[in-house]
């Protein structure tokens, strides 16, 4: 087990810079998820930590030791790949044991380790099988087993759940989280799925275009997004973004609706008001806007309503049993603490 630090990490391929100085401290035993759209540099960051690629500049520290020029095997890490990278011609036992090929343990010690890992992952009776005889979730477990058997200081996961179907993904998500609670090893997990990030992480690192946008607990990034990118990326459906102007008391929306705020952006400043569909309802709180219901999406416990407001569309939540009719006029309100104000030009939270 070890902490992990990235300092001013820059990666450039043929004059294209994909990482612009990544600084990140990960504590011992922490579960950190790197999340962002494709091309944001999250996988590159992981590959740099693993040592599969060498950084153009910057330092990587694992357990207080700078590992920039060390081979992957010397870094005391293990990695689980998106396509599992388990060998189709080897049995599960040999696949898991492959992680121990270079270790100095004796034969019986290695066997004991393999058995132990198989027990933790509940697949003792699968050891003699070939990967082709396993289901997707079982293959995933073999890949995790191969990483675990080496007892590394840091686990790296590169989108390990994206090849699984939705139900299995939810299940494996839980299993990995449980595993982390049991073994307590530091984990860096890469995904493009914000739900995975929210549900699993101790801390989330949101990246875009090779720059970290925000680092925080799931609650922090959800309730206090640092900028419009984080605000729209985290949470589904996406946060509504409404153009507005600062006034003496608060802000004025494009529709002319005035919204009083405790800490206003200052008169005349161009801003964006962000409000999550979950926080936007009929009735309670500060009135934000009114419009006609264009489409309804019943989800069971609640109904998403797409409200047409002066030509733009806003998503809000309505009651699951008696939602407003399509074409009906609704007045939408939100609590003041659920309103997010961003600068219109920089996108930064105010």
């Amino acid at each position, binding site marked *: 087990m070890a902490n992990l630090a990235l300092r001013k990490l820059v990666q450039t391929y043929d004059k294209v810079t994909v990482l612009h100085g990544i600084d990140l401290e990960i504590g011992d035993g922490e579960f950190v998820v790197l999340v962002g759209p494709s091309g944001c540099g999250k996988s590159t960051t992981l590959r740099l930590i693993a*040592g599969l690629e060498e950084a153009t500049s910057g330092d990587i520290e694992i357990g207080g030791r700078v590992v920039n020029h060390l081979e992957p*095997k010397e870094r005391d890490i293990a990695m689980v790949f998106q396509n599992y990278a388990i060998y189709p*011609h080897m049995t599960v036992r040999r696949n898991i044991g492959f992680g121990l*090929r270079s270790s100095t343990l004796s034969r019986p010690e290695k066997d004991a380790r393999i058995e132990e890992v198989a027990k933790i992952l509940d697949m003792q009776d699968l050891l003699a099988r070939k990967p082709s005889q396993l289901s997707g979730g079982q293959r995933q477990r073999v890949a995790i087993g*191969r990483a675990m058997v*080496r007892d590394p200081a840091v686990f790296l996961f590169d989108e390990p759940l994206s090849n699984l179907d939705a139900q299995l993904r939810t299940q494996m998500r839980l299993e990995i989280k449980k595993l982390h609670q049991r073994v307590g090893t530091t984990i860096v997990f890469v995904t493009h799925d914000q739900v995975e990030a929210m549900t699993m992480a101790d801390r989330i690192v949101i990246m875009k275009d090779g720059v970290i946008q925000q680092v925080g607990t799931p609650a922090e990034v959800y309730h206090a997004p640092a900028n419009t990118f984080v605000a729209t990326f985290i949470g589904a459906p996406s946060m509504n973004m409404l153009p507005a102007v600062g006034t003496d008391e608060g802000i004025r929306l494009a529709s002319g609706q005035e919204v009083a705020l405790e800490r206003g952006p200052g008169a005349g400043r161009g801003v964006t008001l962000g409000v999550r569909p979950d926080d936007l309802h009929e009735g309670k709180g500060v009135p934000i806007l009114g419009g006609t219901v264009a489409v309804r999406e019943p989800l069971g416990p609640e109904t998403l309503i797409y409200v047409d407001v002066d030509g733009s569309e806003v998503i809000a939540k309505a009651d699951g049993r008696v939602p407003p009719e399509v074409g009906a006029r609704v007045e939408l309100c939100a609590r003041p603490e659920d309103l997010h104000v961003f600068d219109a030009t920089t996108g930064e939270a105010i």
Partner: protein
Amino acid sequence: MYRNLSIRQKQIVWAWAFLAVPVLFYSVIRFYPTGNAILISFQDWNLLGKRTWTGWENYIKLVNDPVFWKVFKNTFVYLILGTPISLVISFVIAYHLDKLRFMHGFLRMLYFLPFMTSAVAMAWVWRWFYQPVPIGLFNNLLASVGIPQIAFLNSTTNALPSVLAPAVWAGLGFQIIIFMAGLRAIPRSYYEAARIDGVSNWTVLWEITIPLLRSTIVFIVVFSSIGFLRIFDHVFNMTTNNPGGPLNATKPLVLMIYESAFTNYDMGYAAAQTVVLFLILLAVSLLQLYLLRDSK
């Protein structure tokens, strides 16, 4: 009438419409001559005269013919030397070429070029290489460093390997391309996972790359074995003065068939040899498929 057929029947009609041409082609160009050859192997025929039934006589003659046994042995020497040598060389080249970025396309083209070259032209160029001083390239090189001359094509021991070398070389390009395609099909993450596990390159080669190339290797082994068992043009063109010589040292089965048929006009005897060759090809191919079958 066509209108009243069910969808399934219409599909069958169309399938047969397209299959008719290859079926006809195979019947006329492949199956009929094959059957005919088997028939002729039990007859006596000089190509122009009447065919007369002789039963097993051609086969008995074959078994008692010392030249046939010499040729039989030569054919297997071509196979046993040629297949593994070309397999190893082409794998080594493909393995390294796959890792190379610089001039990759150009080098691949260089290796593929001999495969596209006519065997006749190639055989004659190699024949020139093998000539004694002052003509031959190899002997000139040897002479310049003071090593005695080697009688490449005129020695009964050296001639077969000398003929085999250009045949191996000619087939390399094709095998390299197939190997490279096989190497490309192995996911990169397999190698990355192995790097993280810290195993040696040697282990990666033997435990990951080669086992995953199994189907590629089966294909190349079967394909090149059939090629070496049917070797003819290289031998014929490199030993034209005395085809298959010296003293039948390089003569393969196909060349013996050719001579029996078109030098001696003994069609029945030639046909009996083709039947034997066919059985050998069949047995070798089945044996290889069995030995290299997927263990899954």
